[in-house]
């Protein structure tokens, strides 16, 4: 008995490392497979994200006019940037554009998604129509809006004339140009956000809606207490991607206004482009890029914080 008692744990102890080794072998094989599957993405990320990212940070401390040249100048680019009125203006325009476009586009796309989640005739057609601007090249979109905003023969001024209003210099009036481009930004980004919200709305259990309705909740109460909380993770995703895309608005500005008139539509990405490729100051432009990344990070963190607080409540 004693022997048996003594031998049993010994056998178990001998079997355990074998199982453990087998388990470890399986885990290692899984890990290897995981790394193999990850490798293409990692290589891509290192070459196209990490190296350029590190290079941008490095260049921001140099006086390079083109990449690969230049001497180390420490924080001079950053100090110059904080005294650069054009940079301050570009930052202000970018923040204004983001503050106007992101919430309005999110609200509108949610409203459209709710509408298109109902059983209405031609629903598939409407969904397609709303999504078309997303798959259309921004250059093509900008060309259409250039016609709409044409001061002489554009649709915008024809509409104003129809209501007896004075013609507007949509893209040539410094007070109107940025809001005019905000409208394009909202319109163009609507489809992508709408499709995400639509998917999220369809993932909310109909049972919850039905239960709320049976409990006597109004449509607004159902939306606010059932649908809205169900959309919380999606809000964060849409917010992050919207902030990122509004900070990188470039092609629209490049095609329509070139940052003008009087720098009224000059945004950060366009200013970076100007400094890098028109003025040939890639070091300075890199410092601007680093600052832009910091701003995007801060805005996204604030967004995340606000959603956390909401969840805590």
């Amino acid at each position, binding site marked *: 008995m004693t022997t048996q008692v003594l031998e049993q744990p010994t056998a178990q102890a001998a079997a355990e490392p074998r199982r453990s080794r087998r388990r470890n072998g399986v885990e290692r094989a899984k890990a290897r497979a995981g790394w193999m599957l990850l490798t293409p993405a990692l290589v891509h*990320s290192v*070459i*196209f*994200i990490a*190296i*350029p*990212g590190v*290079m*941008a940070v490095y*260049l921001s401390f140099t006086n390079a*006019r*083109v*990449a*690969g*040249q230049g001497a180390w100048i420490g924080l001079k680019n950053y100090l110059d940037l904080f005294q650069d009125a*054009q940079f301050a203006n570009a930052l202000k325009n970018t923040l204004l554009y983001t503050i106007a476009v992101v919430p309005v586009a999110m609200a509108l796309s949610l409203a459209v998604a709710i509408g298109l989640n109902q059983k209405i005739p031609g629903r598939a057609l409407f969904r397609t129509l709303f999504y078309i601007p997303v798959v259309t090249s921004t250059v093509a979109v900008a060309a259409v809006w250039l016609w709409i905003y*044409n*001061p*002489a023969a554009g649709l915008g001024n024809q509409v104003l004339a129809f209501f007896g209003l*004075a*013609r507007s*210099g949509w*893209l*040539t009036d*410094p007070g109107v140009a940025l809001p005019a481009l905000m409208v394009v930004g909202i319109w163009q980004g609507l489809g992508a956000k709408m499709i995400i919200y639509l998917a999220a709305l369809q993932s909310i259990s109909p049972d919850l809606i039905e239960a709320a309705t049976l409990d006597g909740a109004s449509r607004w109460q159902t939306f606010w207490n059932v649908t809205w909380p169900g959309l919380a993770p999606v809000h964060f995703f849409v917010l*992050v991607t919207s902030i*990122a*895309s509004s*900070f*990188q608005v*470039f092609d629209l500005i490049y095609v329509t*206004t*070139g*940052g*003008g*008139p*009087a*720098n009224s539509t*000059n945004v950060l*990405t366009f200013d*970076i*482009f*100007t*400094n*890098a*490729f*028109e*003025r*040939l*100051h*890639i070091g300075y*432009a*890199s410092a601007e*890029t680093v600052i*832009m*990344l910091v701003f*995007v*990070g801060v805005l*996204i963190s604030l967004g995340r914080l606000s959603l956390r607080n909401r969840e805590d409540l």
Partner: protein
Amino acid sequence: MVKVMQRGLKAVTAAALTVAMAALAGCSSGGGDAQEGQDPATATGTLRVVVPNFPADNEGQAVFRGIVDIFHKTYPQMKVEPDFVPYDNLNEKISTSLAAGKNYDVVSAGIGWVQPLADLGAIQSLTKLGIKTEDLEKSVYPAFVSPMKYDGDLYAVPIVANPRLLAYSKSAFTEAGLDPAKPPQSLAELRADAKKLTKRDAKGQITRTGFDFWAPASNYRQQFVAFLGAKGGEMFTPDGQPAFDSQQGIDALQLIHDMVAVDKSSTYGYQNSAKTALVTTGEAAMGFAGPYVDCTTGPEGIGAKCKDLVYFNLKDAKEAVYVGGRVAAVGDGTKYPQAALAFIKAMQDQKSQEAISKLDVGVPISSTAGDSAFVKSNPAGAFAWKNLDKAIFEYGGATFLDFRAKFGPSLDEVILGRKSPQDVLKELDTVARK
């Protein structure tokens, strides 16, 4: 966050990648296996050429093929690899190619690019390649030689000139009660005539522009330089020091503001869909125009309107015409400097100059072009060519591209009444002196 970084880094990724490309590409230039110095008839290799403003349509390609055909008479076995870019993307192409260690063998650019590109090390001294300033002075309008020089050496040769002429419609003058034989001479007369020539509807909206600046928003640079020249001022002194922050500069800029914002005889930034000069299409009674006008009755031509147009110079304090232009230079570090020179010579050929003039809305620059049928047959070109000696340029020193990026948007501030000419010119002066 990685995704966000990916998006945010987009603006510099291309530039940063060129550094990695440099490691891969080494410091080679061009391609193929040509050995410079061997007989041009048997030389092989690929000559990389960057040319702005050559349209990608059949017409643009045909002009380039014509230049290549001339080049191939000397270098029949050498390949030519063109890179067609708009002027707005020229710096991007040059800077990324430099960063990648694959500089172009031939660089075509605007006059203002010569000194900055020489300073940057993108183009090389033609003097060191045996091109003499005296020879260039004999072959082109002498006024165009000075902008081709940097640190005493010749770095580029001019190909075509792009003056901004002034023109008016005789019939519009008559209709407005002005003497069609008497063009405005001073800037004050120009402003007064423009007011009279402007036609409006009952709501006060312009139906015919009085004076067309032929400029998109943020791009009134050349027009300012033209008025500055007429006032007797200059942009930069011969030694490259900024000179535009002067009373003449203030007057010139104030005039543009007054015509656009006070008189409203011109709509700020307005251009027709073809971006042609409004005075040549009849949409304006007077304004800036190019030196090439098609007088045929075809779809591109303006037909009988040609006879209604009169070209003139302002003679306020000085008779001056704004002139820009296209130049060609040999890329620094090229393996084929002699072939590059041969290609530039092909661009300078009279046939090439005429063909490029049509594309660029320009006029040939060679000293004998005035007698050519091409110039004589074109009233705008003939007038422009005769007046190239009154040229005032915009270029100015090694920091010109830096200055140029801020020049146009800064002028907007005055034209739109947000700042005074004094303040803006002072700010620009500081930028130009950096």
